[in-house]
């Protein structure tokens, strides 16, 4: 019920994604390349190095059905890679951005992908069959600062975004010719770029927005160590904000409509569960540390504050600050990315992987009570 496998791939990993059969992992080792490794028995072998970008690749997503990789980078470009034989062939997507791209995600139907950028805008890209290229449509209005994360609603039309202006917004990305008109949605929502909702719960930067599998709950993390859950965003939003005891979260994942995993600066995944009434609360940390929880907390804090509290006696100290010691968990540095690993035939997710600034990709497995 914890870390199943730990793989050290590089000094630092920006983001990662898994192939549809989960035999290969693609990640960016904090430079302008994307490395793809394949597992042969017990050993990982580097299969491909995709090096088309000029700057750090900050977002990778691997589509599960069409087996296409999309990468976005600080160089304001995006490439869609398709596997032809043993080679990965890139197709440039002109995003028309004048600032870095920060995040990317394929839509559930994989006919579109969304890119969040530092240009305070989102790009919705779709494939135009006649011209054999990817077209980018921008949503320029509303955002007051960089868009840090994007999340697609299961209906393939609504997109939630979080931004460094502290707000979480939901937009419609309906594109004529790409999306079919659903009879249930009202025609007023369908206009491309229309803002459906704006959530003003966080006074600080917002990260890690995700929809629940049914699409009824939206969750995102605030940089002030809080996590927000919003029910029924479209018609009658009701929010719950939970203050966290420790450091802020960077990314979230819904394992089911009642269970959320949050990862961030604590280097340890946190589980949140909702009870039968829909009330969310923090359940536990996932990683079992070697030291007992109470003593490790005391030692961590006295390490950090020891010098501060000690200097009230006016003792001149010449010693330098000690580097932070490894805390005995799977990850040794901030976890920045969490990716689901669906098992064929399962309706609830119980496996996922995390990657962080320590260069590790860790696979976790849980038993989820129904």
């Amino acid at each position: 019920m914890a870390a199943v496998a730990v793989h050290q791939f590089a000094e630092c990993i920006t983001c990662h994604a898994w192939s549809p059969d989960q035999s290969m992992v693609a990640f960016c080792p904090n430079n302008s390349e994307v490395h793809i490794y394949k597992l042969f028995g017990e050993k990982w072998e580097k299969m491909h190095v995709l090096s088309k970008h000029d700057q750090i690749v900050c977002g990778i997503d691997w589509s599960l059905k069409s087996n296409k990789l999309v990468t976005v980078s600080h160089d304001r470009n995006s490439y869609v890679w398709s596997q032809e034989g043993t080679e990965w062939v890139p197709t440039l997507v002109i995003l028309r951005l004048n600032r870095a791209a920060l995040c990317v995600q394929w839509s559930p139907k994989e006919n579109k992908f969304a890119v969040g950028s530092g240009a305070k805008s989102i790009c919705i890209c779709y494939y135009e069959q006649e011209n054999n290229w990817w077209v980018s449509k921008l949503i320029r209005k509303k955002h007051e600062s960089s868009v840090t994360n994007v999340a697609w609603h299961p209906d393939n039309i609504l997109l939630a975004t979080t931004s460094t202006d502290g707000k979480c917004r939901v937009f419609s990305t309906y594109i004529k010719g790409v999306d079919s008109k659903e009879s249930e949605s009202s025609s007023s929502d369908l206009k491309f770029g229309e803002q459906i909702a704006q959530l003003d719960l966080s006074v600080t930067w917002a990260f890690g927005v995700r929809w629940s599998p049914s699409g009824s709950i939206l969750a995102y993390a605030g940089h002030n160590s809080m996590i927000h859950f919003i029910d029924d965003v479209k018609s009658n939003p009701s929010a719950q904000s939970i203050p966290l005891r420790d450091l802020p979260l960077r990314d979230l994942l819904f394992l089911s409509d009642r269970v959320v995993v949050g990862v961030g600066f604590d280097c340890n995944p946190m589980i949140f569960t909702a009870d039968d009434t829909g009330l969310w609360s923090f359940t536990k940390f996932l990683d079992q540390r070697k030291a007992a929880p109470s003593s490790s907390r005391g030692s961590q804090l006295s390490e950090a504050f020891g010098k501060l509290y000690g200097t009230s006696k006016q003792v001149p100290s010449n010693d330098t600050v000690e580097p932070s010691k490894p805390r005995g968990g799977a990850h040794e540095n901030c976890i920045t990315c969490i990716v689901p690993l669906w098992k064929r035939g399962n309706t609830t997710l119980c496996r996922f992987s995390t990657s962080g600034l320590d260069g590790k990709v860790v696979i976790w497995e849980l038993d989820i009570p129904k």
Partner: protein
Amino acid sequence: MEAEEEYLEAEENLEAIITRIEHKSRKIETLLKQSKPVDALKTALEGSALKTRDERCKSANWIVVHRAVMAIKDVDGMISSLDPEYYDILMKYLYRGLATGDRPTCDQCLRIHEKLTEKAGLGCILRSLSDTVNTV
């Protein structure tokens, strides 16, 4: 238009806020005479008008909270009997106290800061530092 209305509303309420703080101050003096420093602190923290931008209100409330904070002798006991809803706001006032540079105030605030961090965690510190809307 909306911002203007909010501002006018705040103006009217300023006098109400100052009166409430004076009221609190008297209650705190009574509690301290009865040797109930923890209740005094709770009273001081309760009903603090965090959203107002008026410096007089903030300073007036700070003076009241400062009085209660300096009267605390048993820090451990105080922390264990304080409701969790007060952690974030107490942390904000502790930082205000540390910012004064006054030796006795800083010593006391530091003492309480250590115990409060142990109890409430680093998240409490993060919230007090990053909140620019609800300030003390």
